[in-house]
């Protein structure tokens, strides 16, 4: 184990042993160096590591603090993300930056498996957690039986709620892929973060109950604000799912 890893463990153990809470301040760097007999450089490296991991937060001139845990977006949660953020003591707000009924282009044909020129809802929203921009959610929805779908206020209404309540369509199941992207100029602009910042790229397809493609989504999520979570367990009703 490197000395940086050892010191990082000492700091985390110190937080647990002394029951420090989010927002509590750590002793000064000088005190910590004295307690553990390490040099300032090693301590700073360890602190930097823990800041990157979302454990600590440094405020210039004020010191180093225990960070508030980040919001975990549980991808299997049956609660909507908005409810999940609320349950974690935060507030999710959504701003609609694009909402239009468009004709399916080649991209939509490929990803949503619809006919060229068939009606598709293109919706892009920016999510903020506690007022801080955290994610861009872009979706394409098969709108063939959804007259007027573009007329809803998606800053307030959930897309799945509208599909269910107004059109009797259920987003039932699907699969998604997560990897790493770096913010393009447009994305950086929308999120107010530097171009090239690393972010999650979450892409997937939701199907309706009949197993037909309903929604293709592409989310860009800032790991500084939201991390992704998932529970692994034997799949309930897996037979049906696998045959779908």
């Amino acid at each position: 184990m490197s000395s940086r890893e050892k010191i990082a463990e000492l700091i985390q153990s110190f937080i647990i042993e002394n029951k420090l809470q989010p927002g509590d301040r750590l002793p000064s760097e000088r005190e910590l160096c004295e307690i553990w007999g390490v040099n300032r450089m090693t301590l700073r490296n360890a602190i930097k590591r823990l800041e990157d991991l979302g454990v600590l937060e440094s405020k210039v001139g004020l010191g180093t603090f225990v960070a508030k845990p980040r919001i975990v977006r549980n991808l299997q949660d049956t609660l909507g993300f908005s409810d999940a953020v609320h349950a974690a003591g935060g507030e999710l707000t959504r701003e609609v930056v694009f909402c239009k009924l468009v004709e399916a282009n080649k991209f939509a044909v490929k990803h949503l498996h619809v006919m060229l020129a068939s009606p598709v809802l293109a919706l892009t929203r920016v999510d903020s957690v506690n007022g801080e921009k955290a994610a861009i959610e872009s979706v394409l929805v098969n709108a063939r039986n959804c007259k007027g779908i573009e007329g809803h206020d998606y800053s307030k209404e959930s897309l799945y709620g509208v599909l269910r309540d107004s059109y009797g369509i259920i987003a039932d199941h699907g699969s998604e892929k997560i990897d790493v992207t770096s913010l393009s100029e447009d994305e950086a602009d929308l999120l107010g973060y530097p171009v090239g910042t690393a972010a999650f790229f979450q892409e997937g397809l939701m199907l309706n109950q009949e197993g037909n493609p309903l929604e293709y989504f592409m989310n860009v999520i800032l790991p500084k604000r939201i991390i992704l979570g998932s529970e692994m367990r034997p799949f309930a009703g897996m037979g049906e799912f696998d045959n779908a």
Partner: protein
Amino acid sequence: MHEIDENSPIFMQLREVVRERITTGEYAPGVAIPSENALAQTYGINRLTVRSALDGLVKEGLLKRIQGKGVFVVGKRIERNLDYLTGFHKAIEGGMSNPYVKILEKERRRAGYLYAHELGISPDDDVFFIKRLCYADGKPISLESVYVPCELFPNLMDVDLEVFSLQDVYGFYGSSPDRAWQTLDIVSAEPKMARMLELGENRNVLLFTCYTYRADGRTIEYMQSYNRSDSCFFTVKVTNG
């Protein structure tokens, strides 16, 4: 089948001796048994006789012969069909071929406050710490740190983890994983990690953290896995149950 007694051929007698020691746990799952030469010497028999004694147990699946390493005891197998599990699944661009695990560190240590907290044990309990580098097609894919309570798997230190996976070991000791809580984060690799993972300019790695529990709720493993973001991605199934 005839009872094995002193009139039975020697190779059959040795086979029953080894079988008995596997059953009683004297030869522990995941651990190498004495070498063929050592057994031959102990009992004053030919090495070929030892080999034919062990061959039968290899065929039965009780032993596993690894070229250049020795003969290992195989414990109970657990069937794991990933298709039947939810949760994140790691995938490698272009498919996973020739997976290989290199154990970098393996030690028994005091849990301390941090890992006691993560594993739900006391800070004075011991844990096994394993650091390993996983390869696919000869290229490093992920660097993993694994922490396991010693109490649950007392022989883990003697198990060759390049031969058996931790999943195998959990099965041997009847602590099959029941569920796991996993998170994904993106962090920047520090220089040493970047060198080990052979990262280029792009230092961003996917940090996969996983807590594994058995059916009674005890945490059996805490793992942090740093994955190259250019060659790995994660997939997950979703249902609006």
